[in-house]
């Protein structure tokens, strides 16, 4: 599968990591997390933006830009949601500014490639659900841009 360039490069980089490097890198991304800005959403967040099946209580917003790209924003309400914050930063850094159609083609298999040994039983589905939520928003944006 062909992914947007930044995501493709990041996935390639993660392939080179040993388990300790992978953990450090994921924590580094988690530390960079910045919550959705107030001009996009404020608490209480609209439930329609909540990621289903995510124990970290994550929310996602995709703001359409005039050029057809999306800007992604996230909130993670669970203070223990380290992995959700890491994935949010990765998705935001690699997919914001990308055409909605290209984002819609990103599937949940990237979660396994990024997290490997750090996928625990409970969070794997939640993380995949975050990707699927982004995918779903991107598909909606594509549908809105497509003439009937």
């Amino acid at each position, binding site marked *: 599968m062909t992914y947007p360039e930044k995501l493709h490069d990041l996935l390639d980089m993660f392939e080179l990591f040993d388990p300790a490097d992978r*953990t*450090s890198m*994921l*924590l580094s991304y*988690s530390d960079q997390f910045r919550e959705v800005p107030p001009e996009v959403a404020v608490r209480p967040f609209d439930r329609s933006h909540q990621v289903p*099946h995510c*124990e970290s209580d994550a929310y996602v917003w995709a703001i359409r830009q005039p050029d057809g790209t999306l800007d992604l924003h996230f909130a993670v309400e669970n*203070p*223990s949601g*380290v*992995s959700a914050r*890491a994935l949010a930063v990765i998705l935001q850094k690699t997919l914001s500014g990308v055409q909605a159609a290209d984002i819609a083609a990103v599937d949940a298999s990237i979660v396994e490639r990024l997290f490997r*040994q*750090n996928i*625990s*039983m*409970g*969070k*794997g*589905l*939640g993380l995949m659900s975050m990707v699927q939520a982004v995918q779903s928003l991107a598909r909606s944006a594509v549908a809105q841009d497509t003439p009937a």
Partner: protein
Amino acid sequence: MATPIAERGYAHPDVLVSTDWVQEHLHDPKVRLIESDEDTLLYASGHLPGACNVDWTADLNDQVRRDYISRAAFEGLMSRLGVTNDTSVVFYGDKNNWWATYAFWVFQLFGHSNARVMDGGRLKWEKEGRPMTREVPSYARTQYKASDRNDLPHRAYQNDVLSHIRTQGQLVDVRSPEEYAGTRLHMPDYPNEGALRGGHIPGAKSVPWARAVNPDDGTFKPASELKKLYCEDQRLSPSQETIAYCRIGERSSHTWFALKYLLGFENVRNYDGSWTEWGNSVGVPIEK
């Protein structure tokens, strides 16, 4: 605010310590804090100062067959953690102490009874804004001597459960109501780990594990509420032999802890084979 542990009417209140108690003992050389999580990133992202990590898969499980580590491996683990036979180990972790109680239970197989659980676990500590660090402590190795692993008082095997149901012994199914009913084969929001059949062990009472904790802060409910839950609503008798099970024995170790130490059940064991064994076994009885 939760009622102080000493005032909750527990049978053995000394096995549970508060976040206040732990903060007061952060630098106590006779206490070793052990974090045990399902989420493998959590410890590395920050933990209680001085706490060691015990990974339930890598540290407590045999890496080849489905079983727990040997006595020699347990001695190696304890020595690496700088624990002596006199050290008081205090477990805490994510998910309302699922894995903390699981690690606590495995430690009991080797007779390390000087063990406690931090009430409310990691999330309560975090929410209270208490100190966290990423510094991984290093302790001088010890020469820990363990007893031979003695599963008998704490662990039930499938044959034990089969005998148990023939005598209509007490069983507690701590999984979700949907798993108990057989309408789903795995926990909500968890992957299907391959049980071929759904339902529950005949005669088992359904008491989902999380009912033992206060949902707002993850602390254990007082004994009066636990008695109502297990003894009154489900008519479980503390004096009768009891077996708890779930999917792989992790949620049921939480219930095992509550029944044995908080309510004083005299003979309670954890069937760690649980539904991943029972639901795949040929010919065992199942109720729906």
